[in-house]
C-alpha cells in the first residue's frame, strides 16, 4: 500500500532495508538459540487472553501432567475476536509451524477447516473430547461431519436487570424498551452495537429468536422476510428510543458492563462475566442484579447467542500427536472448572452445572445459564463467515438508521449483501 512514497523517499527505503537486515539477523540469532535446546518439545498455545489467568493456570497444569514429555507455552491473543483472528490467519496463511494448539473462536471452525489449517479429531480422541458436551457446542466445532476441535468453554448472554427498579424482568424486547422508557432513572438498555463481531452476535440472536436464520447451509441464505423484518424493527425501535444508551453505536461488552455498574442502565444483555465483574467493581449494583432469560422478539422462543472457544491442532505443527494430547488436557474437565472459577466462563460439559464450582460462580443462575446454552442460536457456519459477518455489520450499523416502521428497504439490502458475502463477491 505504501510503495509509492518509498519510491520517492529512497533514503527512507534504504534505512528500512538496514532495519530489515538487522531484524533478520536478530531473528536468525534467536532461532539458533531456540533450536539448540535439547529439552522436551515446547508446544505453543495461541489463545485469546483471559484476565482471570485461566490460560496460564491450565497451561502450567497440563505441562506438569505431561510429566516432561512436552511443555506448553501460551501465546496470548487480543480479546477482540476479529483482531485475534487476524493474527492467527496471518500466521496460518504463511504455514507457520510455530503454532501447535489454537484456541478457536466458535465462528472460525468452518473457515479454518476448509482452508486446511486444522486437523480433524478422530476415534478415541473425538469420543473423549465430546463426552457430556452440549450438542449445540459440539456443532460449533464440527465442519462437514468432522470434529475439528475439542470444546473448551462455551458462552451465552443473559438479560441482566436491576431488581430494585424493575419488579419482574421483561419477556420481550418490545416490553423491555417500553419499560425502560417509563423509568425515571437508569432508563436505558445496554447491548453491543459497535461495528464489530459483538454486533453480529446481537443481530444473529435477534434474527434467530424471531424464528429464522441468516444461513441455512454453508452457501444458502435463509433470512425469511417476515421474521427478519421483525428482528430489524426491534433494532430500529431501540435505536430510535430514549431507552438507547447515548453511545449505542460504539458500545461493546465492556462499555455495557461499565455503564451498568455505574447505575446508568436498568437492563443489559451481556455474557456471564458481567456478574463477577459487578460483584468485584460495584457491589451495590451486584446486590440488586437479577438474571433473566434472553428476551424474545415475537412469540417464538428466544435463541440467545453462543460464544466460546474450542481447541484445535494446527496442520503445520511439528508435533501433532503431542498437540492433540495437550489440547485434550487444556480443554478437559479440570481446565473447564478452572475457567469458570477464575474467569466465569461457562463449561461446555453439561454435567459440570450440577457441581459446586459452577454453582458458586453463578449463584442462583447456574441453571439459567445451562438452559440458555441448550436453546442458543449459533452464528452461521460457513467458510465465508468473515464476509457474511462483515456484510451484516456494514448493512445494519449503526442501528439508529433502521426505521422500525419501514424495514422492507433495509431487509432487501441485508439479503442481497449477505448473498454477495456468502459468495465472497465485491468489496467489504
Amino acid at each position, binding site marked *: *500500500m505504501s*510503495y*509509492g512514497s518509498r519510491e520517492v523517499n529512497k533514503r527512507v527505503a534504504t534505512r528500512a532495508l538496514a532495519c530489515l537486515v538487522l531484524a533478520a539477523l536478530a531473528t536468525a540469532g534467536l532461532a539458533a538459540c531456540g533450536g539448540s535446546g535439547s529439552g522436551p518439545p515446547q508446544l505453543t498455545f495461541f489463545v485469546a487472553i483471559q484476565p482471570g489467568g485461566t490460560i496460564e493456570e491450565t497451561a502450567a497444569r497440563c505441562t506438569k501432567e505431561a510429566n516432561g514429555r512436552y511443555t506448553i507455552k501460551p501465546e496470548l491473543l487480543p480479546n477482540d475476536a476479529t483482531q485475534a483472528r487476524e493474527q492467527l490467519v496471518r500466521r496460518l496463511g504463511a504455514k507457520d509451524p510455530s503454532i501447535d494448539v489454537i484456541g478457536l473462536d466458535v465462528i472460525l471452525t468452518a473457515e479454518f477447516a476448509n482452508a486446511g489449517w486444522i486437523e480433524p479429531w478422530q476415534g478415541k480422541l473425538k469420543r473423549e473430547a465430546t463426552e457430556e458436551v452440549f450438542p449445540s457446542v459440539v456443532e460449533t466445532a464440527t465442519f462437514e461431519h468432522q470434529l475439528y476441535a475439542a470444546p473448551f468453554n462455551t458462552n451465552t448472554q443473559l438479560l441482566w436487570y436491576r431488581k430494585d427498579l424493575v419488579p419482574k424482568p421483561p419477556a420481550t424486547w418490545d416490553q423491555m424498551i417500553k419499560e425502560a422508557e417509563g423509568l425515571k432513572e437508569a432508563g436505558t438498555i445496554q447491548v453491543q452495537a459497535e461495528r464489530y463481531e459483538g454486533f453480529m452476535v446481537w443481530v444473529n440472536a435477534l434474527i434467530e429468536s424471531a424464528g429464522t436464520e441468516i444461513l441455512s447451509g454453508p452457501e444458502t441464505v435463509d433470512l425469511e422476510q417476515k421474521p427478519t423484518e421483525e428482528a430489524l424493527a426491534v433494532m430500529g425501535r431501540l435505536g430510535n428510543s430514549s431507552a438507547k444508551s447515548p*453511545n449505542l453505536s460504539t458500545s461493546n461488552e465492556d462499555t455495557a458492563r461499565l455503564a451498568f455498574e455505574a447505575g446508568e442502565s436498568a437492563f443489559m444483555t451481556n455474557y456471564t462475566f458481567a456478574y463477577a465483574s459487578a460483584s468485584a467493581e460495584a457491589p451495590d449494583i451486584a446486590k440488586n442484579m437479577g438474571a433473566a432469560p434472553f428476551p424474545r422478539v415475537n412469540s417464538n422462543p428466544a435463541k440467545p447467542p453462543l460464544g466460546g472457544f474450542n481447541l484445535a491442532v494446527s496442520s503445520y505443527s511439528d508435533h501433532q500427536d503431542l498437540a492433540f494430547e495437550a489440547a485434550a488436557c487444556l480443554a478437559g474437565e479440570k481446565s473447564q472448572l478452572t475457567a469458570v472459577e477464575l474467569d466465569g466462563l461457562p463449561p461446555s460439559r453439561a454435567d459440570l452445572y450440577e457441581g459446586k464450582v459452577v454453582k458458586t460462580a453463578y449463584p442462583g443462575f447456574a441453571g439459567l445459564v445451562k438452559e440458555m446454552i441448550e436453546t442458543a442460536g449459533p452464528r452461521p457456519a460457513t467458510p465465508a463467515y*468473515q464476509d457474511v459477518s462483515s456484510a451484516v455489520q456494514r448493512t445494519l450499523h*449503526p442501528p439508529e438508521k433502521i426505521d422500525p416502521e419501514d424495514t422492507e428497504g433495509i431487509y432487501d439490502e441485508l439479503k442481497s449483501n449477505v448473498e454477495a458475502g456468502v459468495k465472497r463477491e465485491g*468489496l467489504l
Partner: protein
Amino acid sequence: MEASTANTPTHASSRTRSERKLAWMLCAPAVIAMLAVTAYPIGYAFVLSVQKLDLRFPEQTGFVGLDNYGTVLGSELWWTDLFNTFLIMVISVAVELVLGMVIALVMHRAIFGRGTVRTVVLIPYGIITVVAAFAWQFAFASDSGFVNNLIGSEMDWFGGHVSSLVVIILAEIWKTTPFMALLLLAGLVTIDEGLYEAAKVDGASAWQRFWKITLPLMKPAILVAVLFRTLEAFRVFDSIFIMTRGAQNTESVSILGFNQLINRLNLGVGSAISVLAFLIVVGIAFLFVKGLGARLDEGRPGG
C-alpha cells in the same frame, strides 16, 4: 541524483566516464537492495492482482486477468473510500501547512531556548502513530474521555460520520505538523538575512517581507513538504484503524486494502487495491514534480 546528469557535456572525457563507472559501482549495492525491497513487492503485488487467490479457499485459484480491477472499480465502496481518503488528505495537509509555517517561523526566530523549542515541537512526531491514536481515542471517549468532561457533554464522538472524521483529522494534524514544520524550517534557514535587511531599509512591512521574500524563496521547500505529507496522508491507516476501524463511513483506501488482504484473505482483490493505490501515489508525485516543479534535490550541495 538527477543534477549530475543534467549538466553532462556531450563529449565526456575518459576520466569522467571512468568516474561515472565508479559511481555506478558504488551505487550498485544500494540499487540492488532497492530493487529487492521495493521493485519486487510491487511486481509481486501486480502478479497477485491478476489472480483469483483467496487463502480460505486454496483449491479455487487461477488467472483472471483484470477481473479484480473490475471488482474494485465497480464497487461503490472503493469510490466512497477514495473520497474519504482525499478529504482527510486535503484538509489535514492544508491545516498542517499553515500551522507548520507558523511553527517554523517561531522555531526560526526563537531567541532563547532554541534547542528546547525545537525538541518540544517535535515530540508528537516522535510518538508512535498507534499510541497517539489510542491517546486521542481515550481523550474523546464518550463516557471516560476528558474532552467530554471539559465541555460538559455526552457526545459520542465516534458514533457519527462527521465527528469521527474531525477527531481522525485532528489526530493526524497533531501528529504530523512537526514534520511539516521541520521541512519548512529547512527551507527557511536557507534564505539570506540580507534580503530582509534590504527590504526593511526600503520600508517593507513584516507582512510584505513574508509575502514577497519568504514565500517565493521557500516555494521549493514548501512543495517538497506538501508532496511528502500528501503522499503520507494518502496512506492514512493507523488513526482510523484504532479509532473507528472504518465504522461510520470513515474508511480510507488503506483500510479497504487491509480488509480485503488480511481480514478476507482475498489476496487477488486486495493486491488490486494496493496496485491502484500505488498508481494514485505515483500520479500525485508526478503532478507535483512535473506540474508544479517540485525539486526533490533542492537544498543539496550542487542541487
